[in-house]
């Protein structure tokens, strides 16, 4: 009951149980896929104006594939939305644009820089991380387009605040999440109803793990930005993490940049996303690495979660992704 990954070989599931001795094959990826498609269709049916958050990262790449499975041959019944800190990796942004164009779907980009220029976001220091400030731009975009539902690629295995979030998560008119007052979510019967000005965050891949995401990317043969694969990069060691050295993130006083072979497990704002040491150069090697990793995805890569035990919970309450 397992799939074997051979060195350098393509990922091939060695076990697919069949039911009714027919062509009805099913493994856990099929189950997860089907659940996600069902959720997407329910939200589209029950809301007036949804959008799908697409950053060019691996989880949102999976989300686009699921949207294709849910709605093709029709076009997507929602636009794609990206909140760009303008501190993102150029390669990921290029990938984002390319993917949206390939799919022929509308991509809306709203920029944290514009929010800064408009005085909606005030930085304490010019070089501080813009990660947390995305919330302002995001909520402004929701208001601008009157979105009543946003699809996100968050997973419950990522973080403990996410572990307690519903698949359909209600946000009040200030975009806030109230963890103490969530709607009970029974069976697969989702309640997407909102009052004017409120919205729903829908997380169709809530039940997926990091490994599921990579297995699905392998099975569906999906393209991902190159920085997910091993490459040489200038980094410094900081607080036990490897911080990438870029124009936006120069070394601090006393730090000595070194070149390391690394890859990114998660892709986000440059100022808070760290690569890990890795030689995994293809999907097969990433699968192997993910399967045996002893560090969680966010633990290995995110500076924003290191501030306190409750960083994510606090950000989420304020309307973060």
């Amino acid at each position, binding site marked *: *009951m*397992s*799939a*074997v*990954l051979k*060195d350098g070989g393509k990922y091939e599931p060695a*076990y697919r*149980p069949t*039911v*009714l001795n*027919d*062509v*009805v094959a099913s493994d*856990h990826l099929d*189950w997860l896929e*089907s*659940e996600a*498609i*069902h959720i997407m*269709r*329910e939200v589209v*049916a029950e809301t007036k104006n949804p959008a799908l958050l697409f950053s060019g990262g691996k989880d949102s790449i999976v989300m686009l594939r699921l949207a*294709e*499975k*849910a*709605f093709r*041959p*029709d076009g997507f019944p929602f636009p794609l939305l990206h909140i760009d800190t303008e501190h993102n990796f150029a390669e990921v942004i290029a990938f984002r644009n390319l993917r949206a164009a390939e799919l022929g779907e509308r991509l809306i980009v709203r920029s944290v820089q514009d929010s800064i220029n408009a005085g909606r976001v005030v930085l304490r220091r010019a070089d501080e991380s813009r990660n947390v400030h995305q919330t302002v731009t995001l909520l402004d975009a929701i208001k601008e387009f009157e979105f009543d539902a946003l699809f996100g690629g968050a997973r419950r295995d990522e973080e*403990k*605040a996410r*572990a*307690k979030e519903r698949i359909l998560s209600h946000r009040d008119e200030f975009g806030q999440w109230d*963890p*103490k007052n969530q*709607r*009970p979510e*029974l*069976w*697969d*019967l989702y*309640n997407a*109803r*909102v*009052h004017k000005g409120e919205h729903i965050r829908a997380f169709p891949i*809530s*039940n997926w*793990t990091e*490994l599921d995401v990579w297995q699905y990317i392998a099975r569906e043969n999906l393209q991902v930005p190159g920085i997910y694969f091993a490459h040489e990069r200038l980094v410094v060691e900081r607080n036990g993490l490897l911080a990438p050295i870029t124009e936006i993130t120069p070394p601090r006083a006393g730090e000595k940049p070194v070149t390391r072979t690394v890859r990114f497990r998660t892709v986000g704002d440059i100022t808070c996303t760290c690569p890990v040491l890795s030689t995994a150069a293809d999907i097969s090697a990433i*699968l*192997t690495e993910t*399967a*045996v*990793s002893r*560090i*969680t995805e966010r*633990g*290995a890569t995110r500076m924003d979660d290191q501030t306190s*035990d*409750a960083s994510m*919970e606090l950000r989420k309450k304020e309307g973060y992704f």
Partner: protein
Amino acid sequence: MSTQLITADTLRFTTAGSVDDGKSTLIGRLLYDTKSILEDQLSSIEKTTTRRGGKFDNGVDLSLFTDGLAAEREQGITIDVAYRYFTTIKRRFIIADTPGHEQYTRNMVTGASTADLSIILVDASKGLQTQSRRHAVIASLLGIPHVVLAVNKMDLVDYSEDVFESIRAEFVAFCKQLHFAELDFIPLSALEGDMIVERGDKLGWYRGKTLLALLETSSATERTERVKGEFRFPVQLVGRTKMGRDGGYRGYLGRIESGHITVGDSVKVLPSGIEARVQDIVLLNDSLRTAAAPQSVTLVLDRQIDISRGDMIVHVGKEPRVTNQITANLSWLSAQPLATNRQYLIKHTTQSVRAIFEGIDYRLNVNTLEREAGVTTFKLNDIGRVRLKTLRPLMVDSYDVTRETGSFILIDEVTNETVAGGMILGEAANG
């Protein structure tokens, strides 16, 4: 080098019990001993253990792993259902960890609604509690096929077989009035790690499986397998692009909630009753010959029919009940009590219609299983049998036959809150 990647089936289970029963420690132990707690999580728990002056072997308080939100720590309670994931070489697991405070019923019903198995935790030194009975009743009503009574804190009663046996006998007697396909009992100590993943050396008299072994081998997933039922396809959406053989037909988007379908099958569309044949089963670029629950697909029929969201496609001759009157077990989930003179919105499969209460048959006393008649309202955590009338007909099966077409939620249209969950009873209950 080769790595084994698990693609085995998934068992979804709930853990019911209060913090005092050692539930957090049990889950922490299960995850720790299956090596599902990763290094950075462990070091974070170590730091917290030290900061709070706690102690445990290896300097780690395992109960802290399930320690949730800051809001919960402030109040010393667990607020809500938390979902956790782990995998062994045999199986994948999703835990719905449900808290045991005053909103326990609401949370347990939420967790139990998608579960194959429920672990009910009892403190050996305290014996069966009101709460343990309540958990058993809810598990039974929600149709969970496999229940495991985990008698924890055996270390506090000197690992006594007599204590274990008397709790077991009492629970068996109580469960005579309930319906579980499988019922198991395990003595264990989450704190010491006995009989969770490792057997330990203190419970030599117990010959059964460890908790993990039970979870890995439970056949509950077969009982909840949806492919065996009659074909039920509630339509979620209708595609805009014409497809099918002559490019002249619309696709019907939905998920097969139970059963299976093959191209060429004769189907009936409910509630209209119009018949057609299945021309194609589409999933993106694939045309499937057969599809089964729980697959999400697009169905194309061989004739033009007016179908919309909320309609249901089924096999001819294997039809659900089409009715606007249902009798159901209802679990009230809202702090706002039921007002029988108000209309509520019922969401059943992909239909949302208004419903009115025709009557409350009784409220179930979940401690004594007594049926309390003459009740005029349900408050938070109340469970009982009700009769509802809907504005439009629903296509229903009884919950014990097909969960997906036998369940519904009630929504308060003023607050948009989900106020109740319901399990539809068979026609016999209508008498």
